[in-house]
Structures are given as C-alpha cells and as structure tokens.
C-alpha cells in the first residue's frame, strides 16, 4: 500500500496535467506538487523510524504478474497461459521492495523534487508550456521513484529508460516552446545528444541484464544474488555483466568517456538541471552500481575498473570546470566530477560513503543549480563575464549558494565534508593496502578536491563579488520571489544538516537496514566481497588533514586571483604548457570532436549504403526484369508463343499487367473486379454445398 502511495501520485498528477492541465486554475501546477507531497509524506513515514529509531522497518514488497501468467485479468475466459505458471511467469513479475538504501534515497528524491517543483512554479511562470513542464517533471519523479524501489533489473531498466525520455524532452524543452525569445537550436541538439549518448550505456545495460537472466533465469536482485552465491554464474559471465552494468552507469551518470551529454544538457531550464541533471537521474547510475555491488554482482577486477573510471572522471571533469565561463557548465562539470567521486568510492570498497555522498550531493547540488537559476532569472545570461557584484542585489541567493559552495568544496562543518572526507579516507586506505599503483585513485581524488575548491570559488567570486561587469544587466537584477527563495533556504538547511546527520545516525546503519530481509544479507554478513572494506585508522587522519589543506588552499587561490586580483588569471595561460593545457580545457579535451567525427562516419556509411541499395541491389533486380522483357520480345518476334509463355512467364506478366492497367483506364475496372468476384463466389458456394 505504501509503495503505491509513493509511486502513483506523481504519475496520476502527470497524466491529468497532460490531458487537462491548461484548463485548471493556476494551470494545474498544484497537482504535481500535491502528488509529490503525498509521496514525500509516505517516504517520510518510512524514513523517520529508520533514522531516529534505527529500526528495521517492516520490509515492504509487492509483486504482480506482468508479462506471463494470470495477472489482474486472470481467470475466466482469459485464464492463464501454458507458460504462465512456469519459469517465465515467475521471472517476469513486476516487483517492488524497500530497504535502508532505497528508503534513504526515496527521502532524498521526494524532498528535492518537491522543493524543485515549488521553485519551478515561480521560475517557469509565464512559459507557454507551463503545464506541460509540470507534467514532464512529475512523470520524471514517478520514474525515478520506480527505479529506486524496483526489486529487479528489468523494471529498473524500464524506469531507467523512462527517465531518459523525460530527460530528452526537458533538455529540449525550449525547442518545443512557441514564441519564446530563446534559441531553439541548441536545446534540440542537446536533447538528442543526451538521449543518444545515454542510449549507448542503455544498450550495454540491457545486454548485461540478458547475460544475468540467461545464467540465472531471474531478473530480481535477490534471485541473481542467490544464483551467484550458489556458483551458477561463471566468472567470465559475471565479469562481462558487471562491466556492462558499469557502462550503463557511465552513460547515465555521465562518466568518462560518455560524459559529453551532461554539459550540453544545461540548455534545459534550471530546475530541470537541478532535479534531473544534478540531484536524481544522474545519480541513478551510481545507485545501480551500488545496488549491484551490494548483491555481489561485481567481482574484484570490475571494482578496480570502477575505481579507475570514477577517480579519473573526478579529476578530468574538474579540470574542464577550471576554464569554463558558462555559469551552469561549471556546475555541470562539477556534477560529473562529484559523480566520479561516488563511483570511485564504490570501486575502492567505500560503499557507504559513496552512497552517502550521493545523498548529500543531491541536496547541495540541487541548491547550487536552483541558485544559478535564480541568478539567470535576474540577469538573463549564463556567461559569468557579464555578471559580478550580485551579492548586494540578491543576498538570499548569495548566502544560500555560499552554503552550497562550501558543502561542495568539503569545507569542515558542511555536508560535503563528511561524505567526501570518508571517500578520501577509504581510497587512501585502499591504496595503503595495495601499495604503489593502489594510490592512484586517492591521488586523482585529492587533486580533484583541490580543483573543486578553486573552481567553485572562482565561480562564486565572478558572479557575486567584485564590480558588476555589465551595468545594464546589473541594474535590472533583483532578488527572486518567495516561491524561489524559500526552497533555496530549505535546501541550504539540508546542505548542512544532511552532513551532521552522520553523527546522529551513521549512514551505514541506515543502508544496512533491511539487510536481513535480503535473504542472508549481502552486506550484513559480508559474505560476498566487494561491500565494505576495513581501513587503517591512520588513513582517516591523513585524509582529513590533507583534504582540509587542499580545499583551503584552493579557496585561497581563488580569492587571490579573482577577488583580490593579486595574481592575474593570465598567468595560467602563459608559456607553452599553460597555453596548451588551456587550449585542451577550452576544447574539452577534444572528446566531443571525436564523437562528432564518429557520427559523421556513421552517417557517411549509411548514405553510401542507401545509394548502394538503390543503385546496385535495386538495379540488379531491375535488370532481371529488363532482360526478361528483351528475351520475351525476341521470342515474340520469333513467334515462339508457346515457349515464350513457359520460359518467360515473368515478362509476360509485366505485359499482361500493363494491359490490365490499360483496361482499367478504359473504364473496365468494374468488369474485371466483378469477374474476379463471381469466380470466387462460385468457388465459395461450391464449398458451402
């Protein structure tokens, strides 16, 4: 029952909104807000006992026949099919369940989504497709919630793809809008890019599902888990499946090398960036990997790959944020980088900190994006070179964003500190155990931490501090309305509190809840490797000290360069090394160019094939026809009528058909059809007798 209350209110709100939203008062924006509030309250009723009482909440699960078997329409004339009762009926069941991890994620998703919907009612005001926007975001919320509580990979995949659809529609949102002063070209390109890039990961994920299904006969996490525990899955199959799952997550969570879509996705409205491209959907990839690891799908070697991809992306994306001038793109690269932290953490055995960072990041990144939306709303540009000095004009936005920025840099006392610090500690511990090359993830992550601190405050200073660079825009800027600032304030509270909650109820005690219900408990017992890893105590201390030092120096450098302007930013682009690095950063390391080249090649091949189809294959067919006509004509001249009929039936048919068409054109079509009918009816009557 509770599962239905979580899942369906946003869906119903979305459908009603889509059909009659425009005719409702306030264009129906209260419908999704109401629906998500119901989901939120239900999620809260699950979260509170988990958080405060550390209770194993009643394990909730629900399972109905979906593709085979009795189902809702079962019984009567439509009774179950032959395969229904069997293995297929069992495998294709629509199932949901909750445990500690999904409850924590549900709480995060509903909270962020609710606040963003309230924010949007102010931000999107006056848009011609106002009600459609809410229908889409509400449907997205439904899909995300469905993904979080799916108990099997098939349905997870279905919701995964539905989120992809929402993402596509919402990134391109402005390209569907009539007469808005926006450029419609960039959004439509960005939407297509996002869908197709993630589709690569999706296809990989589906193959992974096929591998696991074929080996275990099940889609459910628990079913696959017990099959793996029983040794039913070969090591090579498991490795292939886990790497393909990882590729799926790389697509959805915008990790290298499929990260290219996320910066472009900033063409969507800011609330969309906050909800989908920062807090929730992009986290789904991490969530999937986390779930898969907890059920033992990832062998040791796959975990190493995970750690490598995550930590490399963390630094790689942070580097591009250093040179970006687009306000939202800085945040986008920062999101990619933070998702890299999470993935790396999962890979090095920091299962809990990785998922904890997922939750804390959702709050402070949503806050930062909404803040950027508030600024955009005021100045109507995304270029930071045209901002500056907005601190006086927009104090609430400034202070809330400052909290978000401090959380992002991992400043002590803010939520990012608690989670990121743990990640660094775990990766250092992992390195200490393995020695030499094992330190690579830690080194990449700690450098990324320094970069993060620098680019975050570079952004804050360029936007809010100093003197206004564009006076016209500055004059017209004003603080946003309450519907936008209140969500910012609430989110900034979460951006602090979600970190301190660690001390009240450590995250592992939440996510390990329900472990008992998972049949043996993948995490609880630790029987399957790859869950948690014990780390030396010294790693904690070293990591904490180092992370504080690099964050503070990053922030300090940003202030020296951009606030006090003691050192010119030019210094970084001087010299051959500086110049070439800057060039690489501005060109985004040429990854996009490589994909463009690849796509061009595919289109070239398809064009060539299209011509081949028409000019070669079709010509061959045509020439057979022509040849037979010539032969038959020759035969006709030789007056071998009888032989002609037998040998060149084809050609004759062509001629016959031609005659028939001529016959029709002389108005005898009716006669012909009538003749055909009469003949057929005689046959039928004969049969009847």
């Amino acid at each position, binding site marked *: 029952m509770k599962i239905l209350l979580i899942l369906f209110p946003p869906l119903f709100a979305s459908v009603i909104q889509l059909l009659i939203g425009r005719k409702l008062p306030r264009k129906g924006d209260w419908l999704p807000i109401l629906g998500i509030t119901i989901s939120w309250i239900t999620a809260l009723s699950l979260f509170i006992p988990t958080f405060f009482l550390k209770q194993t909440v009643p394990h909730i699960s629900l399972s109905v026949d979906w593709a085979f078997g009795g189902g809702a329409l079962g019984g009567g*004339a439509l009774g179950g099919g032959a395969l*229904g009762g069997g293995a297929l009926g069992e495998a294709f069941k629509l199932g949901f369940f909750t445990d500690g991890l999904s409850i924590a994620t549900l709480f995060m998703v509903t909270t962020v989504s609710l606040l963003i919907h309230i924010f949007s009612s102010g931000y999107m005001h006056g848009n011609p497709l106002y009600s459609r926007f809410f229908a889409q975001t509400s449907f997205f919320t439904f899909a995300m919630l469905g993904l979080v509580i799916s108990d099997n990979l098939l349905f997870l995949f279905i919701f995964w793809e539905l989120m992809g659809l929402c993402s596509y529609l919402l990134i391109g949102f402005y390209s569907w809008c009539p007469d808005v002063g926006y450029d419609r070209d960039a959004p439509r390109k960005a939407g297509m890019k996002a869908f197709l890039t993630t589709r690569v990961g999706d296809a990989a994920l589906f193959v992974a599902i096929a591998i696991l299904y074929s080996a275990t006969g099940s889609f459910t996490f628990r079913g696959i888990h017990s099959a793996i525990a029983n040794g039913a899955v070969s090591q090579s199959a498991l490795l292939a499946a886990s790497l393909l799952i990882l590729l799926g997550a790389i697509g959805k969570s915008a990790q290298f090398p499929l990260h290219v879509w996320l910066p472009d996705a900033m063409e969507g409205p800011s609330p969309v960036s906050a909800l989908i491209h920062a807090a929730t959907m992009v986290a789904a990839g991490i969530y999937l990997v986390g779930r898969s690891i907890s059920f033992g799908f990832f062998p040791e070697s796959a975990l190493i790959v995970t750690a490598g991809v995550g930590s490399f992306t963390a630094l790689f994306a942070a580097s591009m944020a250093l040179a970006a001038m687009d306000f939202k793109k800085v945040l986008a690269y920062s999101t990619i980088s933070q998702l890299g932290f999470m993935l790396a953490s999962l890979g090095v055995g920091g299962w809990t900190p990785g998922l904890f960072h997922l939750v804390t990041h959702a709050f402070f990144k949503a806050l930062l994006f909404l803040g950027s939306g508030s600024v955009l709303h005021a100045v109507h540009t995304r270029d930071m070179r045209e901002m500056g000095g907005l601190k006086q004009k927009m104090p609430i936005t400034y202070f809330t964003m400052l909290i978000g920025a401090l959380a992002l840099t991992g400043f002590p006392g803010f939520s990012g500190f608690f989670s990121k610090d743990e990640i660094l500690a775990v990766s250092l511990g992992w390195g200490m155990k393995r020695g030499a090359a094992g330190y690579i993830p830690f080194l990449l992550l700690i450098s990324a931490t320094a970069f993060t601190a620098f680019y975050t405050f570079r952004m804050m200073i360029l936007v809010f501090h100093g003197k206004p660079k564009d006076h016209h825009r500055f004059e017209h800027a004003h603080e946003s309305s309450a519907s936008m600032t209140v969500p910012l304030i609430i989110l900034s509270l979460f951006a602090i509190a979600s970190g301190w909650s660690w001390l009240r109820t450590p995250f592992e005690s939440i996510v390990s809840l329900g472990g008992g219900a998972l049949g043996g408990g993948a995490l609880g017992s630790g029987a399957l490797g790859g869950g948690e890893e014990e780390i030396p105590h010294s790693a904690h201390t070293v990591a904490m000290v180092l992370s504080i030092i690099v964050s503070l120096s990053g922030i300090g450098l940003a202030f020296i360069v951009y606030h006090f302007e003691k050192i010119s930013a030019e210094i970084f682009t001087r010299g051959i090394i500086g110049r070439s690095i800057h060039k690489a950063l501005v060109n985004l390391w040429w990854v996009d160019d490589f994909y463009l080249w690849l796509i061009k090649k595919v289109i070239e091949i398809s064009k060539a094939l299209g011509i081949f189809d028409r000019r070669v294959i079709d010509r061959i067919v045509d020439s057979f026809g022509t040849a037979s006509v010539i032969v038959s004509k020759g035969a006709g001249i030789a007056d071998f009528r009888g032989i002609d009929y037998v040998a060149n039936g084809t050609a004759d048919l062509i001629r016959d058909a031609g005659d028939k068409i001529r016959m029709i054109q002389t108005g005898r079509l009716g006669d012909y059809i009538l003749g055909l009918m009469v003949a057929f009816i005689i046959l039928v009557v004969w049969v009847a007798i």
Partner: protein
Amino acid sequence: MTLSLLLLIPLLGSVIALFVPEKAVKPLALVITIVTLIAAIPLLIYFDTSISGFQFLEERYWIPTFGINYIVAVDGLSLPLVILTVLLSLICIIASWNIEKHVRGYFSLFLLLQSAMTGVFIALDMFLFYVFWELMLLPMYFLIGIWGAPPRVDADGRTRGGPYAAIKFFIYTLIGSLLMLVAILWLWNQNGTFDFRQWTDPDRNIQFQVILWTLFFIAFAIKIPMFPFHTWLPDAHVEAPTAVSVVLAGVLLKMGTYGIIRFNYFLFPDATVMMAITVGVFGVINIIYGTLCAMAQTDMKRLVAYSSISHMGYVMLGMSAFMSVGRGSAVYEGLLGGTLQMWNHGTITAMMFLLVGVIYDRAHHRDITRLGGLAITMPIYTGFVGLAFFASLGLPGLSGFIGEALVLLGTWKAAGIYRIFVGIAAVGIVITAGYHLWLIHRAFLGKENPECAKLPDINLREIITLVPLGLIVIWIGVYPAPALRYISATMQSIVDNILQAGL
C-alpha cells in the same frame, strides 16, 4: 462459422460496393469493416489460451478428388494476426475517406484484400492457402498501380511511380510463390492431400527437407522482406496511397514470418534446426542494413519503410533462437518475442504510415529537409508522432520494447554465435534511436520552415484512426500479459515440436 464470417462479410461487401451509388460506397465499406470487427470479437472471448492447437476449426469438402478441402482454424500464432487484419482494415477504410478517384473500385478492392489477407492466416489447406495468397496479390497490385503516385522519372533516370512499384511487387511475390507452389505440389503428390497437418513425416530425409524448406523460405523471405529481396518494399511504400502502405506494412509483411513459423517450422523440424543460424544471420543483416539505410533517407515514407525492414529483422532473429546452441534445450523467449513483435510492428508501423500520410496530405511532399518546426505549427500531430516514434525505437512502457526485449533475451539464451548477434543488434538499437530522433530533430523541432508554417493541425478523422492504435501501443507496453497469454501456449508447443522431432 466465426472464421468463415470474417472471410465472407468483406467479400460480400466487396461485391455490393460495385453496385451501390458512388456516395454510399464509403459508408458501406465502413459498416462492413465494423461488422467484421464485431464478428471477430467472439474469437478473443472464446479462444482457449491453455490449448496450443487449432481452434474454431471448420472443415468442409471442396474438391475431394484432389484432396482439396476448405479447412480454416486459428491458433495462438494466427489469432493475433487475424485480429490485426480486421482492425487495420477498419482503420484503413477511415484513413481512405479522402479517396476521390474510382471510389467504387478502390473500396471494393480493399474489402477483397481484407478477405484474402484473413484467408491467408486461417487456411490450413494448402490449396486454399495458395488461392488466398495469390488472390491477395491482385487487389494489392491495382491499389498500388492505380491509386498510387503517377509515373515519373527519378534522379537516376529510371521510371518510378505507382505502376512501376506495383509490377515490381507483383513479380517479386509471384516468383516466390511459384517456388512455393513447386514445394506444395511436391508434398501433395507424396501425401495425396492438401491438408498440411498431414504432411509431417519424421523419416523424411534431410536433403529433401532442406530443399523444400528453402523453397518455402524464399517465398516467405520475399514477403518479410529479407535482405537481399527487400527492394520492392521501399518502392511499394513510397508509391502506394497511405492506407495501402498501412496494410502492406501492418499485415502483408507478417505473412512472411507467419509462413515460416507455420509451415517451415512445423513440416521440416530437422531442416529448421539446421537452418536456424542462417535465419538469425539474415535477421541481423536486416536489422543493421535496414537501420543504416533508414538513416540515409530524406523521404519520410522511405525512412519508415526501411525501418520496417529493420524491425522485421528482430522478428527473424527472435524466431531463429528457439534452442540453445550445444545444449539443445528449449528457448521460448525468442519466438514469443518475435511473434509479439509481429503484432507490435503491425500497430506501430501502421501509426507511422498514417502519420506520414497526414503530413503528405497537407504539405504535398514528405521531404524531411523541407519541413521544420512542426512541433509548433502542429502540436497535436507532433504528440502522436512522438508516441509512434518512441514506440518504434523501443522505449520501455510502449509496446515496441517488450517484443525486442524478449527477442534479445531469447537470443542471448540461445548462446553460441547468437551472442554475437545480440552484440550487433545492440549497436542497431543505438542507431535506431539515432534516425528516429534525427527525424524529429529536423522536421519537428528547430526553426519553423515558412513553407509549412500555416499547415492545419491533425483533424478528427485522422485522430480517430490513430487513437485505437495508440491505446494498444501503450497498453501492451505497460501490461503485456493479456497479449502474451494468447500466444504463449502455441509458441511453447512449436518450440517443443521442433526439439522433439528435430535432429
């Protein structure tokens, strides 16, 4: 009597249509197709989904001297296709409301076509089957030839247009059916009856099986259409009027895969096991080749036509994966997925051709490069296009996904070389999404093209043709169990039959 009614009502309508006043023809055709649809409802209600064999069997003597009888029946394989035929015929009649040329002839032929198509799916006597198979060609030939596009010379200097496409379609199919006729007569000669159920012979030698199998297969492969026998399809589609394209893609293509499962799989299990991988290879070629060719098209209708080739590839791939290589154990998902995909492709592609027809009626061209910003000028139309296209690219929650998903799951399960097929098909999935979105990108989003800025949005009649299909697409996508229930028993027995008899 139910099945015979489905044959007789449209046939009767076809005759009456020639004698009523021209104005009354369209309403008459509408009434006839509605009555036929109502007559088909008992099939759905009284069909016993737990039985794998034939139901609603009717047997009558016809020409007993030659072992020719009137035998019709349906099972889980043919029932969905019969329903599809009846439903699409009704929709096509509504979609043809704007036909002005030779109205009597058009609707009369259309009803005749409906009768013949139904006959192909329900006939168990091979003589009867062949009669319907050929009978179907004639109305199709005239519908494309007369009501299709007028003859013209294309850029390559070759004559195109309705008559060209019609003759091409006709000859292609005829060559195939002549091969099939040889096989049919051969088997008849051996058994003295045309009832194909009595043609099974466990001791038939394998070379002989393979020859007969191939004769049947080529006939059906042309219909699917399978690479390299596919070139009639883009031409036929491009030149045919909208409603004809709809039945062509929606029903006629299914006759190919239907025939293979019905006759090849049943009659020659050993040869089927032997040739399974070949079918799979051609399936994969269809998927990739169709997808890449679709990507290259600028004519919207040609694009949809090539996408049909690609989607029928999934059907072939699925039905080839009925057992796991090496272990020889049964795999049901592939055939289930393939059969479901036939139905899904029928509904989705029908929607797509109807939608292409809508824009052609308004803009009088289908050139993607000359459209643009339609999402703004025709928002409701764009909504339907979105539904159909996302269903076609296999978005979960819409019907296209579940068929393809089952096909890929089954194919992976079949192990061995089939796993490579899955890998290639996975690449196909990405490119498929590519050309669908690229079309939306170019024709519907972006700057409005002044040429099509004043086009009126979709009208009520067109919406009526699309809504039933749209609802089916959503329904099967959200909850496929009712649809799969009809086919699962039969598919199970088909697979079991091959594995028992084969090798």
